[in-house]
């Protein structure tokens, strides 16, 4: 993504800032200005907690341009506790340890590097919830 586009989505990538609809109260992520549930305008910012569970997962062995250095890496659809689902990479876990339903939390990690002249892009990734891990141990 271009520098401007990365900058424009910084609140989403660093802090999972979405929206909450004033009319139906649903949480929305990514932000989209019109509520997908009731089609009313929705522009009130709302930061999601970053906690959720794995809805589905896979491993990317054959990455698109820009992600070569990181492959293979696990990715998932994460169902956030507030309702929305997000597509993201998983981190701090081996691909074969991922399970559907596993509790995960958002962390900020390096997403990719755009060469010597380009920027380094950071974004949300999800790791197993530390607290739950501790409790389980």
């Amino acid at each position, binding site marked *: *993504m271009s520098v401007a*586009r990365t900058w424009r*989505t910084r609140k*989403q990538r660093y802090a999972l800032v979405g929206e909450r609809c004033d009319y139906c109260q649903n949480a929305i992520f*990514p932000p989209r200005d019109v509520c*997908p549930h009731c089609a009313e305008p929705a522009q009130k910012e709302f930061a999601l907690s970053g906690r959720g569970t794995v*809805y*589905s*997962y*896979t*491993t*990317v*062995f*054959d*990455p*698109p*341009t*820009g*992600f*070569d250095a*990181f492959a293979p*890496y696990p*990715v*998932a*659809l994460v169902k956030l506790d507030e309702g*929305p*689902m*997000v*597509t*993201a*990479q998983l981190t701090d876990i081996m*691909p074969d340890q991922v399970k*559907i339903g596993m509790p995960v939390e958002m962390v900020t990690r390096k*997403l*990719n590097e755009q060469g010597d002249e380009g920027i380094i892009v950071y*974004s949300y990734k999800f790791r197993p919830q530390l607290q739950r891990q501790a409790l389980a141990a």
Partner: protein
Amino acid sequence: MRPVYIAGIGQTPVGEQWERSLRHIAHDAIIPAMRDAQIERADALYVGNMLSGELVGQEHLGALVADFVGLRGIEAYKVEAACGSGAAALRTGYMAVAGGLHDVVIVAGVEKMTDTVGRETTAALAMAADQEYEAAEGVSFVALNALLMRRYMYEYDIPHGAFGYFAVNAHHNAAGNPNAMFPNSITLESYRKATMIADPINLLDSSPICDGAAALVLVSEDYARSVGNGRRPVRIAGSAVATDSLAIHDRRDPLWLDAAFISSRKAYQQAGVSIDDIDLFELHDAFTIMAALSLEANGFAERGRGVRLAEEGEITIEGRVPIATMGGLKARGHPVGATGVYQVLEATLQLQGLAGPNQVENASIAMTQNIGGSGATILTHILVGE
């Protein structure tokens, strides 16, 4: 609205066409289609294509291709709806003839995917998904389908091996199609051993990257009477498009192809047919999971039962719902923006009794369905042989 007929067809073999450029393969499909329909001019040309800008560095395909096939001067432009571009071009041509604006329209689907290296093509295909919130996270188009397949296997408790019946059927049928990319038979055993590309999707779950072009000549009823190449007239009896969210994470139920449900219901109604009347179904088996989800959303199988339909042999040429009768996306090949036109061309061959060893007996009503992205644009057409 006026009835619309398919008066001529043309196609190139699907595969790696190193010696031919994008414009050449368009030519190689359009000229035979014009000869087949016995026309020398057309009122308009609509070119279905997804990736020419990204993979060939060429946009503005309408004027380019019109000029290149000797039709300089006519109305022409490109139609894009990701992997659904081919059927979107067909829909545009259909509306022009049905609405009375044109009497003779050429619809071509064309894609050149082999001029670039793998990673560039992978990145380009991900443009069918949400660039800011799916692709930007490094999630490839294959991976998006893998997320659906994993969840499907989990929810319905279906082992990966069961999806192999889709791949085996597609390869079996491709053997009878001289234009197919993979006319080699495979077994359930080779399916199980295929290389993993984004688990649980392996190489034989996935359609190949390739080049190809297909073309159709659409004409009004009056014009159809005046030309005629002696073959059974094929009418486009239903044509419908519906959309869904671009991103899978924005769907209410990721395992339900709502746009397939909506567009197929519209097309059935428009054609005045019920699902039991359909003799064959050219579906969008870009991945085996998509074949299962399509069978379910269109009403051929209950939810979670699409794979069982394949397992029970109902999807073969002799079965209750023959699919991928000429190899499908899996084995004929999936030159993305051309695929929707190949599907309709193959259904036309079936309705005219010209499908050779793959002929579905007494076929008179066919359905085709072309999908853009992971279900965001779905186009359904119903063809009737008269």
